[in-house]
């Protein structure tokens, strides 16, 4: 009998798992991707859209064009998984049975969790990035604060990249001298990885970017233009940009498959659900305390595909995820550094250079014809 694999989510993780599985198993398995929109979003591009360096059209593609022809795509909402019955119920009311389920549903922004969030700006969705772009085009000077309103959040380097690139943007616009830029850092340094912080701090000093440490955003007072922290401090602002709180997808919560944050309890090596052996998870959807980023999903996908293919063939799965992540960190001025690490090896970032900026640019451009198809590993 043909095995049935259902993949929830048509982002980088889901698309890559589906393509790799079908390539490996061919007629031994049917592979179906369920996605609520049928559109694939390249989320690392939001930062560039907000800062007027990229066109929004570049960030979206029809998911159908990224999947192998023999992978089925169902454009519908995933409502509920019944793990005991091995079925998925869709928004249309239809039911899809599965032998293996892959949860690649990403993160969901939960702006309502922050009192006073209202129309505070962010660059964590297309709508948010476009609205911030308009606000920055109108900006004539003032206090810009960037804060983090929840943990975990996607792409831990993004806030640092944003303030460094914002500095450059405001200089070109001729309003930098009339502006303050402050990064409200949740930690006692600019960035979570200490070696990367040591590269970033001199850039902050040189460009007059203020770093406020141990400031985890709790609430916003949009009338008084004040933002407060869970540590009990407050800062005033003219333009506030927040990283909104993230949660797992609603289908995980509705199915009782997740933890308090809606994330799937996942084995750090096998990427299997800790209680449900027929369910795998990758990317943002897991509860693993590692980066929520496309890069993580990219390196996890071959492990998930290989393990499911082995199980379907009746052999023992061999591949395991070793925590590999690789990402770029833009430092403004056409320079960037890179962060490469895994569970056993902490990152040793090189000095920011034009090389890594161009490497990031080339990766962004080549994404559509490389990553979803598994052409880069």
């Amino acid at each position: 009998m043909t095995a049935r694999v259902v993949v929830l989510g048509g982002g980088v993780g889901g698309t890559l798992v589906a393509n790799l599985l079908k390539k490996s198993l061919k007629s031994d398995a049917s592979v179906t991707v369920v996605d609520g929109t049928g559109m694939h979003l390249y989320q690392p591009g939001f930062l560039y859209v907000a800062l007027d360096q990229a066109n929004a059209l570049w960030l979206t593609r029809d998911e159908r064009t990224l999947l192998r022809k023999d992978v089925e795509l169902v454009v519908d909402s995933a409502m509920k998984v019944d793990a005991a019955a091995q079925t998925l119920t869709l928004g249309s009311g239809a039911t899809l049975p599965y032998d293996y389920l892959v949860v690649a549903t990403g993160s969901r922004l939960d702006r309502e969790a922050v009192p006073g969030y209202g129309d505070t700006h962010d660059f964590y969705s297309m709508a948010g990035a476009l609205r911030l772009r308009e606000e920055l085009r109108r900006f004539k000077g003032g206090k810009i604060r960037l804060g983090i309103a929840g943990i975990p959040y996607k792409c831990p380097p993004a806030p640092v990249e944003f303030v460094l690139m914002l500095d450059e943007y405001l200089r070109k616009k001729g309003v930098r001298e009339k502006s303050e830029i402050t990064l409200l850092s949740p930690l006692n340094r600019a960035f979570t990885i200490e070696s990367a912080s040591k590269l970033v701090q001199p850039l902050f000093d040189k460009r007059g970017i203020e770093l406020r440490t141990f400031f985890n955003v709790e609430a916003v007072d949009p009338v008084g233009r004040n933002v407060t922290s869970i540590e009990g401090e407050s800062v005033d602002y003219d333009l506030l940009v927040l990283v909104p709180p993230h949660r797992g997808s609603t289908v995980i919560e509705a199915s009782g498959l997740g933890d308090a944050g809606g994330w799937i309890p996942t084995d750090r090596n096998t990427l299997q659900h800790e209680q449900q052996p027929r369910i795998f998870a990758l990317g943002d959807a897991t509860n693993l305390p590692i980066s929520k980023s496309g890069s993580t999903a990219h390196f996890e996908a071959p492990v998930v595909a290989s393990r499911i293919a082995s199980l379907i063939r009746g052999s023992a799965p061999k591949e395991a995820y070793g925590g590999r992540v690789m990402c770029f960190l833009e430092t403004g001025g056409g320079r960037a550094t890179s962060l490469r690490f895994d569970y056993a090896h902490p990152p040793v970032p090189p000095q920011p250079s034009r090389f890594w900026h161009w490497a990031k640019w080339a990766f962004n451009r080549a994404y559509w014809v490389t990553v979803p198809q598994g052409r880069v590993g």
Partner: protein
Amino acid sequence: MTITELAPTKTIDARGMACPGPLLNLIGAIRQGQVGDIIEVISGDAGSKTDIPAWVAKAKHEMVKIVEEPTFARFIVRKAR
């Protein structure tokens, strides 16, 4: 305090997790938890020994205990407010 009272509400094994790292995971767990929860963070990063107690003091939670093991340390924190 008895052993039962010290049983963690949540344990985060952040060993080998360079990014986002042990402290950021602790802050996330405290934000999501209830007052009185005991959070245990396991970290092999030397920086945690200064970073974690510094944040716990600043955010006015309680640093219950630091248990040193040969290659890592366990940080037991109580959400106090």
